[in-house]
């Protein structure tokens, strides 16, 4: 090998492995970084450690069974993924769940968004050295997990709702629980914001760190809070309203500089707006009424009927054995998940299982810009940027 100035300089770079199992990589992410002193000269993210073949598995599972897979995609906000999947299948089948189901799903979506942002921001603050905020935020998330637990029977892998509506009605004290949560939530968000907004350490660690320009963000395919932090007011809830978002009033917070600081406070404000949406939903939601479509080819008949009526019994057996059967066709449905646009593309051949499933996970597009963002930063900023982009390996690799 010929020795040139370049190779000499290169040989002084140090290569380090970050991950795949590192407490600060949320999930299993692998990064090979070339360091010049403490600065990142170049980095290569390697993905696929949490690849479970979820898209392929979709071809072997019935439409409702696939909910168990979407549960485990973005595991910080399972309700959002599940609702997204159900919306896609419902669009393919051309059915609309009754209003009560849609309102409840809207509330569940916003609760899941708060859960996602609380974890993301809490951990981000923790990564840059503000441990207290982490605990206050997790406390709030805990209350929400308890509500989900009461509602669905599980804390994280909720497998709820179903194609065509909800499998069962809400618990009687659901509204009270959510109201109680909201009452405690606002002061905590304000307090966490107060703790960090003018905190010099936090500012030093986040302002100008991991910034990306509007144009670059759009060309990378950013969506969600990370794009909004760059100053683009793009939100699917406003742009292509699904569920009940056209009937509630909320703002879309944006940032200016697209750095960690903006992303943090965009998420904070979004959580607050989510709470506002939940409040309105609780007001407008009908208290009575069906929670699922009245079609036994989509939703299981109630058990009483299965016992008493021959027809319901046959529908029950047919639905469990064959699953819901959308007509042949293709559909794409996106929804505003915690990290951005989560889209499901389904090709159906008319049978009970999808012919092909494609998931557009927001993390994948955001993570593709990671090298560009961290180039030239300090090694300690790697974690801060990773946390603030909210890369969830489960969703990234699927």
């Amino acid at each position, binding site marked *: 090998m010929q020795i040139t100035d370049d190779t000499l300089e290169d040989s002084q770079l140090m290569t380090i492995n970050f991950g795949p199992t590192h407490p600060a990589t949320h999930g299993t992410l692998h990064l090979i970084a070339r360091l010049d002193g403490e600065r990142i000269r170049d980095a290569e993210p390697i993905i696929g450690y949490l690849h479970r073949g979820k898209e392929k598995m979709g071809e072997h*599972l019935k439409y*409702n*069974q696939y*909910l*168990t897979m979407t549960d485990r995609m973005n595991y910080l906000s399972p309700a959002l993924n599940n609702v997204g999947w159900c919306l896609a299948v419902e669009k393919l089948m051309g059915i609309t769940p009754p209003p009560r189901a849609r309102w409840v799903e809207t509330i569940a979506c916003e609760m899941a968004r708060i859960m996602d942002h609380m974890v993301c921001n809490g951990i981000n603050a923790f990564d840059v050295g503000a441990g*207290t905020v982490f605990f*206050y935020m997790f*406390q709030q998330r*805990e209350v929400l997990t308890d509500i989900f*637990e*009461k509602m669905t*029977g*599980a804390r994280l*892998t909720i*497998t709820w709702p179903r194609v065509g509506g909800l*499998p*069962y009605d809400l*618990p009687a004290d659901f509204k009270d629980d959510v109201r109680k949560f909201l009452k405690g939530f606002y002061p905590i968000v304000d*307090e966490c914001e*107060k*703790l960090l*907004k*003018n*905190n*010099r350490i936090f*500012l030093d660690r986040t*302002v100008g760190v991991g910034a990306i320009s509007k144009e670059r963000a759009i060309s990378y395919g950013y969506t969600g809070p990370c794009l909004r*932090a760059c*100053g683009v007011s793009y939100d699917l809830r406003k742009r292509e309203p699904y569920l009940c978002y056209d009937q509630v009033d909320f*703002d*879309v*917070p*944006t*940032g*200016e*500089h697209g750095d960690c*600081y*903006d992303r943090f*406070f*965009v998420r904070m*404000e979004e959580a607050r707006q989510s709470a506002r949406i939940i409040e309105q939903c609780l007001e407008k939601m009908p208290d009575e009424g069906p929670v699922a479509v009245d079609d036994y080819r989509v939703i*299981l008949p*109630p*058990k*009483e009927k*299965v*016992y*008493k009526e021959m027809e319901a*019994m046959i529908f*029950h*057996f047919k639905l*469990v*054995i064959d699953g819901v059967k959308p007509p042949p066709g293709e559909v794409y449905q996106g929804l505003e998940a915690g990290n951005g646009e989560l889209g499901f593309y389904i090709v159906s051949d008319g049978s009970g299982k999808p012919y092909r499933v494609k998931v557009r996970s927001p993390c994948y597009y955001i993570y593709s810009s990671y090298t560009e963002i961290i180039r030239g930063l300090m090694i300690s900023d790697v974690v801060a940027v990773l946390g603030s982009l909210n890369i969830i390996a489960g969703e990234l690799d699927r």
Partner: protein
Amino acid sequence: MITQRPRLSLWQNLYLPEILRGMWITIRHMIRFKQVTCEYPEKPHAVPANFRGLHRLIQRPGGKERCVACELCLTACPANCISMVAADPGDPSVEKYPLRYEIDTLRCIYCGFCEEACPCDAIELTPHYEFASHRREDFMYTKDRLLDNNRFVPEGERVSKVQTNETYLRV
């Protein structure tokens, strides 16, 4: 709405007063709010009745299982963790019964699709969740062990949301 970027005053830049202010919030939390963690092994986390934990096979009054070996739970299971062998019990009032019925709880993902699919309320997920063990065999729940799991639910009660409380089945 655009997030605003603060311009720090000298006072805030001095750092020490800010630390004291932060400490004040922490101390206030310590005094004002009650404990939120639970001391787990001593005081287990209380779960709602419809929590999806360990399975049980519900019994008929005579102590036999209600299951009629229709294999719907097995079809609905996304994790393929239920296995069963059906047989004729030789009892004119029951057509079919599971000779063997086994759930591999290491594979199970506690989705609750089995209880939803069961047409005669024979299987249910109980709120019991502490069944860790060192041995693999302990997680293979055979029919007898699943019937034994009835002790986790008060007699005559149903905990699942998708099931009825009434008995329509011939005994």
